[in-house]
C-alpha cells in the first residue's frame, strides 16, 4: 500500500481523531492553565516543606510514612493499566483492543512519572538525592524500586512511542504545526513494507518485554514493605497481591479515562459499548481476584492470632481505620461486583460508578497497608495516629492535576486513538481473523474425504 491512499482514507474516515490537534482552541488553553495553576499551588504549599522540613507534614514518630508513600504505591499501581493491559491484549490478538491501547499506554507513562517522583517528596533531604548514585546500596529494596521503575518508565515510553510512529508521520505529512517536531519524531517513516515489518517486530518484542517488567515493578514495591519484619507487612503474598491490586486499579482508571475522553473528544464512534463491556468484565474478574487475595491475607493473620499481628488487624477491622477498611471492601468488592455482574447495570454510567469506586477503594487499600502497620509498633508504645497536613493534600491535588494535564497535553499533540491500527484493523484484520477462526475449527477437507465418518 502506498502512502497516498492511506492519507486519503484518514482524511475520509478518521479525520475526526486529528481534530483536537489541528483545531485546538480555547478549551485546551483554559484547561491546561487551570491545571498548571493547581499544580503550581501544590508546589507553593510544598515550598514550606523544603523551607522548614518534614515537620509541616502530619507524619510523626511511629507513623513515619504517610500520603507520599501511599500515593507512590497508588499511582504506580494505576500505571499498570496501560502497558500491561495493552501488551496482554496485543499478545492475545484481542481485536477489540485497537481503539484502547494508546490511551492505556499514555496512562502508564504519565502516571509513572508522577508516582516515581513521590519518594523524592518524601525525603527529609531531597538535596542529597544524588547520594543514591554515589553511594547507593543495591541491596536495599528502595534501590530495587529505583532501577525497576526506571526500566519500566523507559520501556513503557518506548512502547508508547514505537506504535505511534506511523501516526506521527501522518501528522508530518499533513504539515501540522509544529511541523519540525513531527518530522523529528517520525524518524523517517514512509510506510514502506519493510518499515512496517520492522515496526511490527519491534512492537512484538516490546509487548513481551514489558509484561515481566511491569510485574516486577509492583512486586518490588510490595517488597519495600514485605522485606521488613513489621506486622501486617512481612507477608509472602504481598508481591502478587500488589500486582493484582495494581492491574485492578489500572483497569478502573483506564475505564474512567475512556469514558471521560469519549465524552470530551466525542469518540463515540471508536469507543463503543462493546469495548466497555469487555473491559468491565475484566474489571469484574480482577475484583474477585482482589477479594480472594485480601481474604487470604487477612484470614492467615487472624487465624495465626499473633498478638502483634492482631493489633494491626483490629486497628483496621474495628479500630480507628474501620471506616477506611470497610470502605475499601465496599469500593473494591461490593460495588463493582454488584454493578458489573448484571447486564442491566453494566451500562456506561454503571461502569463509570464502579470504576471510580475501584480507584477510590484501591487508594484506601494502599492507605490501609501503609499506615496501620506503622501506627501499631511491636513494642507496647501507645498507638500512633496520622492526620495529613496541608502539604500532603496539596501534593495529592497536584498529582491528580498533573495526571489530567498529561492527558490534555498528549491529546493536544497526538491522536488518542491509534489511527493506523484502526485502519489496519479495517483492511487486514477481518480477513486475518476469519482465517484464524477457521484455523481453530476441524479441517474441512478431512470431512469431505469422508473416510472415517462415512464408514
Amino acid at each position: 500500500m502506498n502512502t497516498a491512499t492511506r492519507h486519503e482514507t484518514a482524511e475520509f474516515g478518521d479525520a475526526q481523531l486529528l481534530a483536537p490537534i489541528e483545531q485546538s482552541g480555547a478549551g485546551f488553553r483554559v484547561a491546561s492553565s487551570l491545571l498548571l495553576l493547581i499544580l503550581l499551588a501544590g508546589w507553593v504549599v510544598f515550598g514550606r516543606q523544603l523551607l522548614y522540613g518534614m515537620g509541616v507534614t502530619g507524619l510523626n514518630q511511629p507513623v513515619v510514612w504517610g500520603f507520599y508513600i501511599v500515593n507512590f504505591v497508588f499511582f504506580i499501581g494505576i500505571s499498570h493499566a496501560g502497558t500491561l493491559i495493552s501488551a496482554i491484549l496485543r499478545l492475545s490478538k484481542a481485536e477489540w483492543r485497537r481503539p484502547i491501547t494508546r490511551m492505556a499506554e499514555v496512562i502508564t507513562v504519565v502516571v509513572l512519572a508522577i508516582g516515581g517522583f513521590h519518594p523524592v517528596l518524601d525525603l527529609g533531604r531531597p538535596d542529597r538525592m544524588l547520594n543514591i548514585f554515589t553511594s547507593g546500596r543495591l541491596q536495599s529494596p528502595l534501590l530495587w524500586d529505583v532501577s525497576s521503575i526506571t526500566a519500566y518508565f523507559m520501556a513503557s515510553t518506548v512502547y508508547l512511542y514505537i506504535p505511534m510512529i506511523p501516526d506521527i508521520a501522518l501528522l508530518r505529512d499533513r504539515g501540522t504545526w509544529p511541523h519540525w517536531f513531527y518530522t523529528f519524531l517520525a524518524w523517517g517513516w514512509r510506510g514502506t513494507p519493510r518499515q512496517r515489518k520492522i515496526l511490527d517486530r519491534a512492537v512484538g518484542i516490546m509487548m513481551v518485554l514489558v509484561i515481566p517488567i511491569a510485574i516486577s515493578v509492583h512486586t518490588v514495591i510490595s517488597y519495600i514493605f514485605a522485606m521488613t519484619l513489621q506486622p501486617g507487612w512481612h507477608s509472602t503474598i504481598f508481591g502478587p497481591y500488589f500486582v493484582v491490586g495494581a492491574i485492578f486499579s489500572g483497569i478502573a482508571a483506564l475505564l474512567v479515562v475512556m469514558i471521560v475522553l469519549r465524552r470530551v473528544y466525542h469518540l463515540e464512534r471508536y469507543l463503543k459499548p462493546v469495548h466497555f463491556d469487555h473491559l468491565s468484565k475484566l474489571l469484574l474478574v480482577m475484583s474477585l481476584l482482589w477479594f480472594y487475595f485480601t481474604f487470604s491475607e487477612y484470614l492467615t493473620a487472624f487465624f495465626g492470632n499473633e498478638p502483634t499481628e492482631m493489633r494491626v488487624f483490629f486497628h483496621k477491622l474495628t479500630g480507628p481505620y474501620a471506616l477506611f477498611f470497610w470502605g475499601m471492601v465496599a469500593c473494591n468488592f461490593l460495588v463493582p461486583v454488584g454493578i458489573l455482574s448484571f447486564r442491566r447495570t453494566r451500562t456506561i454510567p454503571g461502569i463509570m460508578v464502579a470504576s471510580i469506586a475501584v480507584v477510590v477503594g484501591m487508594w484506601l487499600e494502599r492507605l490501609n497497608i501503609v499506615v496501620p502497620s506503622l501506627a501499631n509498633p511491636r513494642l507496647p508504645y501507645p498507638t500512633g495516629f496520622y492526620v495529613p497536613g496541608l502539604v500532603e493534600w496539596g501534593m495529592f491535588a497536584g498529582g491528580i492535576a498533573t495526571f489530567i494535564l498529561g492527558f490534555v497535553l498528549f491529546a493536544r499533540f497526538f491522536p488518542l486513538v491509534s489511527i493506523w491500527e484502526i485502519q489496519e484493523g479495517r483492511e487486514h484484520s477481518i480477513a486475518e481473523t476469519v482465517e484464524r477462526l477457521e484455523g481453530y475449527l476441524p479441517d474441512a477437507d478431512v470431512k469431505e474425504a469422508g473416510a472415517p465418518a462415512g464408514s
Partner: protein
Amino acid sequence: MSRWGMVIDLDRCTGCGNCMAACHQENNLAAAGAEETGRGRAFHWLRLLPEVSEGPDGTRLRYLPQPCFQCDDPPCVRVCPVHATYLSEEGIVGQVYSRCIGCRYCMAACPYGAKVFNWYEPRWEGDSRKRANPDVSLRPKGVVEKCTFCHHRIIRAREESRARDRELQDGDVVPACAESCPARAIVFGDLDDPESRVSRASRSPRAFRLHDDLGTQPKVFYLAETE
C-alpha cells in the same frame, strides 16, 4: 576488638527517667517542645517503654529504659539505600548524618522504633546551644539519628588508657545513661570479654532480650524482676 553491650537490671530500675535526661544532655538532643510532642514527635534516643501488667494486687505500670538495641543483625542497616546506617566493627549501629537522605526506611524497618527523625531544624532554647557537648556533633534537619552507645565516650576512654599506656579495662567506658542512674541499674561493657560485668550479667538466668524471636540479636539485655 570489643563488642559493646548493655544490661539493664529491672530489679534496680525505679523508672525515674534520669537516664533519658542525661542522654539528652550528653548527646545534644534538642527538646521537641510540648506542642510537637503532642503531635507524636517526642525526641529521645533512649525512651521509657511503658509496661502495664495485671497482678493479684491490681494493675501495675512500670517503665523499661529502652536505648537502641544495637542489634548484631540490624534490620535498619539492611534496608538503608545509601550506606547511611551501618554496623561498626565494635557492634554499634552507626548513623552517618551527612549522608542520610531522610527516607525514613530504617525507622519503618526497625522493630523497636529506636530511631528518631529531625522533623525540623533542631530548636535550641535560650543559649542552650552554646552549652552543647563539644564531643557530639549537632544534627541538621531532615536526617535520622539514634543512640550511639555514647560512642564518643568509648573513643575518649580508649585514648585515655592509651595515654596511660594500659589496656582498656572493664568499667572504663560508662555511657551517660549508666553514669546518671541513681540505682546503678545499667551496666555497660564488652560482651566478648567473658569476665566483664556486662558479660556475666548477660548470662544470668534472669537475662532476656526484647523480641529475641525476630533474630535481630540485640546487644541490650534486661534482667527480669524477681518477686
